[in-house]
């Protein structure tokens, strides 16, 4: 059954005001195009979950779609701060932003608990840290065995929607990812609804040739969107590089609320969809970001009949 749709329809149908939304991807495969479409459709009161609220969440927070972040590291990686987020947290400008924070492992384990339908997940972290003091969801627990080891537990995080980007997927949503895996799989299995965005929509036969490469199975996927360069300025391993210049530029853009709004007007509200965004950057831009080839080599599954 084909689940192929457009980003506009996927967001319109699956992302609702007030939802908890996770656009995951650890540096790699961050689906900016989905964030832009959520901004464009002017969703409100979202709780945005992500290990590393990145420039995309700064853009979404700046655009006013979010009331809360659930996260473990808040920054513009390799550059500095997320200024729109900081304005709301430090000065309630233009309004407060609720924060619920964990460590990286705590965030991963919250997704893990939800993905595995567990009421809690134990981790050895948070000892002698102030984090549990400011986040009462992180609770100490003792091992019931003789050692009595103390762990902390975190509760399941079940986003209403997870949006994960893959290099390739078939029409049913079987998605294959290589390079950094982040917590895409855990976030997708944790969520009520899943949108898979991909660089290339491929035949089911391509997926079936290498089933061990499938990170996300179609059975949990609600919509499939083919959207090349959807991760820019983040990257897709083997397809395009991280656009570091944009990460640096964002630092300047986001420092001033008016500049930020001007950027949103020009690059999000002023464009109908991601295809126009790709066109606006121009072919030469994408050409510069394209890596040389580095093929994986093949393995043989063997045909048994």
């Amino acid at each position: 059954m084909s689940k192929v749709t457009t980003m506009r329809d996927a967001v319109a149908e699956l992302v609702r005001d007030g939802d908890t939304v996770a656009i995951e991807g650890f540096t790699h495969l961050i689906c900016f195009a989905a964030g832009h479409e959520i901004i464009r459709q002017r969703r409100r009161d979202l709780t945005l979950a992500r290990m590393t609220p990145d420039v995309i969440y700064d853009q979404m927070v700046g655009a006013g779609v979010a009331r809360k972040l659930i996260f473990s590291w808040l920054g513009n990686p390799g550059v500095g701060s997320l200024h729109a987020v900081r304005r709301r947290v430090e000065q309630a400008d233009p309004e407060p932003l609720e924060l619920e924070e964990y460590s990286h492992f705590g965030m991963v384990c919250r997704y893990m608990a939800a993905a595995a339908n567990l009421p809690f997940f134990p981790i050895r972290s948070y000892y002698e840290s102030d984090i549990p003091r400011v986040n009462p969801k992180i609770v100490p627990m003792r091992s019931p065995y003789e050692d009595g080891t103390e762990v902390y537990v975190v509760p399941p995080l079940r986003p209403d929607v997870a949006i994960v980007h893959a290099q390739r997927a078939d029409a049913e949503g079987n998605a294959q990812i290589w390079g950094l895996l982040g917590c895409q799989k855990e976030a997708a299995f944790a969520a009520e609804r899943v949108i898979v965005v991909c660089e290339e929509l491929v035949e089911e036969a391509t997926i079936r040739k290498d089933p061990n490469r499938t990170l996300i199975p179609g059975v949990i996927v609600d919509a499939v969107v083919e959207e090349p360069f959807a991760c820019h300025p983040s990257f897709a391993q083997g397809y395009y590089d991280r656009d570091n210049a944009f990460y640096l530029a964002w630092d300047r853009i986001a420092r001033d609320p008016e500049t930020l709004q001007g950027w949103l007007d020009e690059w999000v509200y002023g464009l109908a969809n991601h295809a126009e965004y790709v066109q606006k950057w121009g072919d030469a831009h994408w050409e510069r970001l394209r890596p040389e080839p580095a093929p994986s080599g093949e393995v043989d599954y063997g045909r048994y009949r």
Partner: protein
Amino acid sequence: MSAPGEPGYSKSEIMIAASARQLVGVRNCFVGVGLPNIVCNLAQRTVAPDLQLVYESGVFGARPERLPLSIGDPTLATGATAITSMFELFAFYLQAGLIDVAFLGGAQIDRFGNLNTTVIGDYARPTVRLPGSGGACEIAIHARRILVIMRQAKRSFVDRLDFRTSPGHSGDPAHDAARGWTGTGPTCVVTDLGVWGFDADTGEMTLTSLHPGVTLEQVRENMGWEPRVAPELGTTEPPTAEELRLIREELDPGGIYTKPGA
């Protein structure tokens, strides 16, 4: 293949056909080896064309090119849509409630569909040591529906299990509902004599149809408690010519699981 007066299909074949029809419209199914595997493959070719076969070995969407001889047959891996570690299969698929139907069986079953695959006799000094749970215990808890395929006999349809490996109904539907499990437990038992459902008010196994030529007396003789019988006891639809063709020519051409006496 059949002597005059015989029905033209084996006991295994009617069990397979009756079971496959339980899968109408099902999206995915946890497949076991042997009969359940043939059942699922038959259903995929008849009443459930979109059925995805999920194997406990970690294979999702298998498209086997031959009859798998175990749930870990290499023909299951080649050409599947996804292969996962056992941890992920049990945690993200089964425990998370993504499995619609699973097949279980056992050496003993009681009237509430509880199953024993562990020991006959005392646990510490068993008369017969059986395989144990495998994934059955958690499958019984998490798969949305459990189908059971078992041959009937006094020693296997028992009033009291020697060991409860996998939980079925408790006999108290209010208790069952309060358990909060993703699964609803056993919904159908297909035997070599008939087809059983489970009574909504008591959770008790209830005979809904007899296979052609089988009498209620034979059923009683081959079980350890007085059976509950549905008010309108039917006759199981025999395997169609097409079902028999699929079983004999495509799914088990060697008759490993389906030849008379198998």
